[in-house]
């Protein structure tokens, strides 16, 4: 997956992969935070703080300053994910939403409710995306009955990247048109 090259202002990129592209997302977070502030919204406990600090160290940068540029907020249910998105201000910076659907895969949440909440979440994602690029990572649905959620998110994306796609060398495009 080469996410970085696909990132453009006002774009919505979806990374769909096992474990919600956990490693890939960490590497992307590092690339992004090297260039400016980044907000990570974690819906499935996928954020790996120490991996990120280690990757930052490999870049030979001041990791204390770099890690201060990275903000993180977490949610643990689909209701909390909606609350998280609704209370996140839209800023001119990238947003990385990890495992957006984790809370929606909960068996206790009915299909209708999951669908309704997801629509509201996607509205918020579009709001955030007005000023900066948004990358969403998704884990596969645990059952075929819930795969409609993945399809719904992918249908709203400008680009969907999956592990099958070639892993080209990352090149760094400009994130914001200034």
């Amino acid at each position, binding site marked *: 997956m080469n996410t970085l090259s696909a990132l453009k202002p006002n774009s919505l990129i979806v990374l769909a992969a096992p474990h919600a592209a956990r490693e890939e997302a960490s590497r992307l977070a590092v690339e992004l935070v090297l260039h400016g502030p980044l907000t990570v919204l974690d819906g499935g406990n996928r954020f790996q*703080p120490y991996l990120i600090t280690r990757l930052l160290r490999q870049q030979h940068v001041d990791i204390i300053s770099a*890690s201060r540029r990275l*903000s993180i*907020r977490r949610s643990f249910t689909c*209701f*909390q994910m909606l609350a998280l998105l609704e209370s996140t201000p839209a800023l001119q910076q990238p947003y990385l939403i990890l495992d957006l659907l984790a809370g929606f895969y909960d068996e206790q949440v009915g299909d209708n409710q999951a669908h309704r909440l997801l629509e509201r979440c996607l509205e918020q994602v579009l709001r955030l995306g007005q000023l900066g690029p948004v990358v969403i990572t998704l884990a596969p649905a645990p059952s075929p009955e819930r795969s409609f959620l993945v399809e719904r998110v992918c249908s709203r994306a400008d680009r969907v990247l999956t592990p099958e796609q070639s892993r080209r060398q990352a090149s760094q495009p400009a994130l914001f048109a200034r």
Partner: protein
Amino acid sequence: MNKHTGWLMDLYPGAQGGLSLWLLCDGGERLQMQMNFPVCFYAAGESRLLRQAWMHLQGRELSLARTCRRDLFSGERDLLAITVPHPGELCNIFRTLSEQFPDLDYYNADIPLPLRFAAQTGIGLLGRCRVSRNEEGQVTALERLDSPWELEPEPLPLRVLYLSPDCDPVVCPPQQLQVRFERQQFCLNLKDPQTLKVSLEALLRRCDPDLILSDYGDTWLFGQLREWAPGLNPNRDPLKEIQTRNAASYFAYGQVIHRGAQVHLFGRWHIDRCNALLFGEYDLQGVLEQTRVTGLGVQETARKSPGAGITAMQMLTALRTKVLVPVVKQQAEGRKTLNELIRMDRGGLIFQPLPGLHKHVAQIDFASMYPSIMVQYNISPETNLSGAPPGDREEEGLVPHTLRPLLEKRLALKNQLQQLDPRDCRAGPLKARAAALKWLLVVCFGYLGYKNARFGRIESHQAVTRISRELMLQAKETAEDLGFTILHMYIDGLFVQKDGLGKPHDFTPLLEAVHSQTGIPITLEGVYKWLVFPSSRLDSRLPVPNRYFGAFLNGDLKYRGIALRRHDTSLFAAETQLGVLKILAQADDPREKAGEARRFAAWQLDRLRRGKIPLDRLRLSLKLSRELDAYRSPGPAARAGRQLEARGQPVRPGMRVHFWYVYGGVKVSDVDLKEIDLGRYRRLVERAVDEVLGEWGLAQEPVLPGFGAVPG
């Protein structure tokens, strides 16, 4: 007008509307009464949607009003208050409304009825009260006569009927039902359903039990009775039918938990000891104590985790202080930088042990450390998130307000217990009650951070662990200032040692100094004449936290993290390990008794070889951590699960499966002693023995013939 005094036993939506109450009267009568009891829930959200909801509900037998109440997280909210005249109808009305208006926020819609009753009348289940009723049996007045926080509540004169099959129904089909009531004990034959039905009906009529305490009642007995004796109604309320709840598997406390199907009765209680989560920990007395303080029904309390009890207590506080109880928690975590997350998202302090044998060690524990912190530092989602000591004028938050009386009662019971002779007949029930309260306190901290906890907040959770780490470091520094060596610290307890100190009173100055420094009471768990911290089996240079065994000055043993404490150890291996420890505990230096302990272990293994160990001592019990299909290379538990499934038994994650190791695999039933894989059991026992005898250097030489150190 009739007046009655007694204990409130049960309450539920009446079959003909209103509320049905059961009073266990002082005179011995079990009285059913009815009461009008309208209940209210709230909706909040956009005015447009609220107006539509109002229109939707108009014309029904409901009372609608506008009101304003406080949401703990978002402050005052304008609400649509919906009052339902019959409590039994609330569930349906709420479901229909929330389906129609899913974007509204709902409050107070799923509060257990006994909690609403307790909030409104001040009388909780098992509370003593005086009830006035009219000729129609309708309650006209209620008066509370005691409080759940009384240290010595009057004991309920309960009539208990014990029912249990003659064997575990999973292992073989039971032939008889063993019955016990007061001093009578007899068996009912299960072969003739008609006779069984008549006998049970007569039994229920004659004994009129308040509680049916069964083994496998939830998962076997009542299901079978429906087939064998279709017309039998074991409820005391003849208008009610048995309430069954489906089995469920869920993830909690870091593991998959399976709860079997449940059978609840009305007017009397049914508890299945085999399906009651912590019944083994605190018995019926503990269940009754939890019911008193949480307000949940007895049948609920027995089966649910203590977390449900804590939630109930918080709901009750919320109802009493007019704080809204959200149906779903919607708050998300606040923003943190990466640095802040790494600093805050941490657990309790673990200071690794110094492996090996130590003499004259004191174990000192902070009393209910986490709940004490929550109360003392006023940690609640709406109050102190920073963890700084609260100011004098700060209003007590909902969580500490709920916990304070619980904490005080538990400490008071513990003090009472310490003053009682262990042989005193009051000691047992008191211990059970203290244990039941302890479990509520144990889970209250975890609930602060539980994703679905209505009044949980991750920042509050983190503040508690942050304070706990600081207090542990303060305790360490205080002890070191007084010349103690710290052998191990684990979350809320310290193991300390100082040359020349070996009697309990020697440690009093340390306890006082730590208490004075930290502000949290700290108690002496005991002084060990010797204590061993085993090192890792993989590398003897590696310490293992919270794994130890030792003997107190009076010879009592304490052990953590060894085979005896693990659920996956057969009774035989556990008994052998305990036997070895008991021999070691006789000496001031366990090395003096190592030879005798080895001989005991060899004798046990010899009994195993000669087939003298009963099969029930060899049975293993393992938990299924996932669906059977999800096991890539099935271990013994999965193989046992598959055998059960092949026999038509429902198998779910979190379920415990019982089996024996036999030649060629495992077997869940119909096992013969000749099939038992003795070599495998021998290895398990050797390992358990090595775990306690393999310390202090003896592992290098064979402890038993063919019994060396377990290779790393």
